[in-house]
Structures are given as structure tokens and as C-alpha cells.
């Protein structure tokens, strides 16, 4: 082995080690930042190592791509607000998949024009472009839905599942053919095309509330595409980083699907159950009790334990900072404030935690569902801000409800429940929520941010 190759491989090995240590650091919040900075150094080492490779003859296009990518990536890193994180991540899955797919196509074309494509390499390139192409369009659809360019309601037509399965089977068939005869260029490009169409048909039927699962799944696919790239070009650091990404997305999709009461196979094959067409029970004849900010402020003023339940509505209203102000006032009166975070609150895994941390709320106050569910019965006030389905008792009681069996936060066990909501419109899943009609529930209607500001104002005056 010539010294240059040894040096490059050493750089890749170092990068792989730093990547794993970086991910490990994420198990301890206080060390996470340092660990990820080391992982970034690992990335730099791997890139510099690659630039000295013998195969690279000219640097013009490379420098151009690096410069353009930095020019686009830097603002995407620095200026995108935390509320837009789900769509930001979705679009970055697309970029990752674009890179993997194009490398696959270029590699195929090159081998085809020179030595012919060996079967082993064809297998790797096949996986690469298949996962890559469906992730490109799938992520773009997810981005569109989250950015609300596309309607976030599920878009379906009759027999959609059969069409999807047929497309997937055809793509798999073409892949099989290519393994048999890698020189079939038409089959290769048809497979890429089908992958692109399949990505669209995979995500369009999925509603906005299911996005946490979709994003996790696409995360996993993007990782697998990167890993397959590593197989194709015989590069271990790519195989390792891709496998880590794939494992991470896989684990997150399992966690998310459990939290949403969907079976694991359901998620794996992307066949997300039919959209909840009609809700089982309607609330006709029931009345809700509304509460003024003054009364709510008095309740909060005397509360010993307040549990805040944030949902996507809080993120939309950008009300995190008002939540912090209110919590500070409760704490000044001697009360304790905790935050109950449902795994699928928001539009991606862990989104609520990021938003609350951004508002300068200490992370040890942010509690996972299992950790806090037994505390609700001790809570004087549970303050639900823009959350709906994750606090719906129908998940426990109503067998006909589409969300029956989904683990929920036991908000209804609190002594008092104050629900902040814009109106009585049902939530994302379009299901009526009995919690709003319960004896111990009071509704505080209006924009979450405005309501919280009023509450803060009232508490200061009290």
C-alpha cells in the first residue's frame, strides 16, 4: 500500500471514531455540544483526506461545489428558526439523498462506459439509487407539507396502495434484472424514475400529524443510501456513517410509531393506515366552560405544581417565551412548574424540547411522558397549550376512535385543566376531544401567545 493510501485510510478511520464518539456524547446533554464539535472535526479530516486522492485530477468543479454548498448551507444553519426545524430537516434529507443518488448514477455511467459494472457493485448501486431516489421526492413532499406549500391533509385516491405496491414491485423487478444483466441502461434509468415516483406516492397519502414517523423513516432511508454508496465505491467511512444514520432513523421511527399507536410493520412498508375518515363520537349537546384570563391567573397563583403541556399550537403561536415568563411568576409564588413532553408533540421527534430550550427553560424541567404521567394527579393545574390529540382521553376509552390505544398524557387527572386553544376546531387528526368537555376543564380561547401575555399581565397585578 502506498503511503498516500495509508494516510487517507487513517483519516477515514479517525473520522469514523469521532463520529461514533460524537453520537455517544448525545446521551449526555452537558457533553453533547463538545462531542458534536469533535465529530465536525472528524468530517473535516475525512474531506481533506479525500482531496489528496490520486483519482482527483482537477479541482475546479470541486471548489465550485464546496463554495456553492457552503453559501447555501450556512444560512440554512444559522438563520432557520427553531419552529421551522421539521421542514429544515426534511429538506436536508433530500440534499443527502440527491448526493447519494447522483454519485450512484455517475458511478454506473462510468463503469458502464469503461469496464462494465460488476454484479456486486451493481447490487450496491441499485440499493443506493433506489433508496436515494425515493428519499429525494419523499423528503421533498414532506418538506412541502410541513412548509404548507402542499395541503397537509392526506391526499389519497382509490386503489392507491395497489398502485404503490405495483410500482415498488416493478422497481424491485428491474433491480433483479440489473443484477442479472447490469448493462441494461434502460432498466437502470427506469428504476431511478420509478423510485422518484414511488417517493411521491409514499408520502402524499400521509397526514401532517404522522410527519414525525415519516421524517424518521426518510432519515433512515437517506442513511441507507449513503451506506450503499460506501459499498459501491468501497469506502468504509461512508458505510459506517450511513449505518449510524440508518440505525438512528430506524430507532426513531420505532419510537415514534409506538407513541402514535402504529404497528412496526405498518411503518416499515410506509403503508400508513387510512386517514381517520370520521370520528367515532361527536360532541353534540355537550358544552364547554370557558375561563377568563383573570380567573386562570388566580388559579395559577395558588398552584403548588403546574404541569405545562405544550403542543404544536404553541410552536405556531411562537409562545415559548411567554410560557417561560409565566413559569417564572408561578415559581416566584412558590409553585413548581414542569413540562410534559409527548413523544410526538410537534412535527418531529424532540421538537418541543428544542423550542422550550430556546426559550431558556432548563432542560431538567422537561419531562418525558413516562416520567411525568404519574405526576398529573398531584398537579393543581395542567396547562395545555395548543396540544390536542396527545391529551385526548378517547385514546384510553373509546374503542371506535382512530387514536384508540395511543399512549397519552394523563392531563385529565389533574385537579384543574386549563386548555388554551384558538377555537373549538378539532385537531390535526380531526377527532373530537372529550377532555374539553370534562368537569375539571376550562377553556381559554384565543391565540396562545396573546392569552399567555394576558395571563402574565394578570399575575403580575395580582
Amino acid at each position: 500500500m502506498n503511503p498516500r493510501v495509508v494516510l487517507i485510510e487513517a483519516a477515514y478511520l479517525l473520522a469514523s471514531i469521532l463520529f461514533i464518539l460524537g453520537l455517544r456524547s448525545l446521551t449526555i446533554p452537558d457533553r453533547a455540544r463538545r462531542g458534536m464539535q469533535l465529530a465536525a472535526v472528524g468530517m473535516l479530516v475525512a474531506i481533506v483526506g479525500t482531496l489528496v486522492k490520486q483519482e482527483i485530477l482537477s479541482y475546479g468543479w470541486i471548489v465550485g461545489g464546496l463554495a456553492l454548498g457552503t453559501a447555501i448551507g450556512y444560512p440554512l444553519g444559522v438563520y432557520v428558526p427553531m419552529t421551522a426545524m421539521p421542514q429544515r430537516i426534511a429538506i436536508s434529507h433530500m440534499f443527502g439523498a440527491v448526493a447519494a443518488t447522483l454519485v450512484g448514477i455517475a458511478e454506473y455511467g462510468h463503469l458502464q462506459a469503461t469496464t462494465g459494472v460488476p454484479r456486486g457493485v451493481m447490487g450496491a448501486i441499485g440499493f443506493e439509487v433506489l433508496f436515494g431516489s425515493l428519499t429525494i421526492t419523499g423528503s421533498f413532499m414532506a418538506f412541502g407539507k410541513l412548509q404548507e406549500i402542499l395541503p397537509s391533509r392526506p391526499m389519497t385516491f382509490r386503489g392507491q396502495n395497489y398502485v404503490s405496491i405495483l410500482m415498488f414491485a416493478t422497481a424491485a423487478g428491474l433491480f433483479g434484472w440489473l443484477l442479472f444483466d447490469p448493462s441494461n441502461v434502460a432498466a437502470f434509468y427506469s428504476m431511478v424514475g420509478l423510485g422518484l415516483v414511488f417517493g411521491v406516492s409514499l408520502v402524499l397519502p400521509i397526514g401532517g400529524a404522522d410527519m414525525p414517523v415519516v421524517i424518521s423513516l426518510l432519515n433512515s432511508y437517506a442513511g441507507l443510501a449513503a451506506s450503499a454508496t460506501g459499498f459501491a465505491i468501497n469506502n468504509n467511512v461512508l458505510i459506517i456513517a450511513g449505518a449510524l444514520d440508518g440505525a438512528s432513523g430506524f430507532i426513531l421511527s420505532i419510537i415514534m410509531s409506538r407513541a402514535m399507536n402504529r404497528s412496526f410493520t405498518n411503518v416499515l412498508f410506509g403503508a400508513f393506515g387510512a386517514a381517520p375518515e370520521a370520528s367515532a363520537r361527536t360532541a353534540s349537546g355537550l358544552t364547554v366552560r370557558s375561563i377568563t384570563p383573570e380567573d386562570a391567573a388566580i388559579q395559577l397563583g395558588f398552584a403548588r405544581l403546574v404541569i405545562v403541556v405544550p403542543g404544536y399550537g404553541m410552536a405556531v403561536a411562537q409562545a415559548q417565551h411567554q410560557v417561560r415568563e409565566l413559569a417564572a411568576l408561578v415559581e416566584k409564588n412558590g409553585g413548581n412548574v414542569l413540562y410534559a413532553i409527548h413523544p410526538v408533540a410537534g412535527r418531529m421527534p424532540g421538537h418541543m424540547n428544542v423550542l422550550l430550550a430556546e426559550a431558556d427553560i432548563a432542560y431538567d424541567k422537561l419531562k418525558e411522558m413516562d416520567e411525568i404521567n404519574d405526576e398529573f394527579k398531584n398537579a393543581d393545574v395542567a396547562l395545555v397549550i395548543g396540544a390536542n390529540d396527545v391529551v385526548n382521553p378517547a385514546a384510553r376509552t373509546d374503542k371506535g376512535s382512530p387514536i384508540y390505544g395511543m399512549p397519552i398524557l394523563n392531563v385529565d387527572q389533574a385537579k384543574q385543566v386549563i386548555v388554551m386553544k384558538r377555537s373549538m376546531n378539532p385537531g390535526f387528526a380531526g377527532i373530537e376531544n372529550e377532555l374539553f368537555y370534562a368537569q375539571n376543564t376550562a377553556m381559554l380561547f384565543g391565540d396562545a401567545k396573546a392569552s399567555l401575555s394576558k395571563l402574565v399581565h394578570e399575575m403580575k397585578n395580582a
Partner: protein
Amino acid sequence: MASLEIIQLYVFILAGFVGFFVITRVPSLLHTPLMSATNALSAISLVGSLVIAGAGYSTLATVLGFVAVTSATINVVGGFIITDRMLKMFKRADRKAGGERK
């Protein structure tokens, strides 16, 4: 199957195991940074894109490589910056008192 592919498969499966055991221990608190971090890491496919863009296989391959380098670089730069931006915000209650703002 050639021995090279066997070794690749070993690497893939073992890395998958390492990933599984490390990542199951990441608290849900940090799941968003985890996702942006793994996204930045898998942008290591930049390494493959660089070779395609610079090896001069053909004009088409070079252009594809250029687009791939651009896409991967977006994820490397943007991914690590945004992960750091998020992780910077997570603070404990006891460390915050008297600590610097922002």
C-alpha cells in the same frame, strides 16, 4: 461473493450495532439534535461526490458530481451549524443561575 464484499458487510452490520446501542440511549430530549447530527454525518457521502466531481470521467459525470458536492456540502455545513445551535440552548437549572445569558 468476493472477500471484499464480505468485509464491507461486516463493517456495515457492526456499525449498525454500534449505532443501535449508542442511539437507544439518547434521551428523547435530544432527538431533534440527534436527527440533525446524523443527517450531517451521513453527508459524508461528500467524500464520494468529491471523487466523481474531480476525476474527469465524463462531462456528465463531472456535472453530476458538482451537484452532488453542492448538496452534500449544504448538509455538512448547515447540519453541523444547526446541531451546535440547538445543543448550545440546552442548559440545566443549576448551571443557569449566575451563568451568562445567551
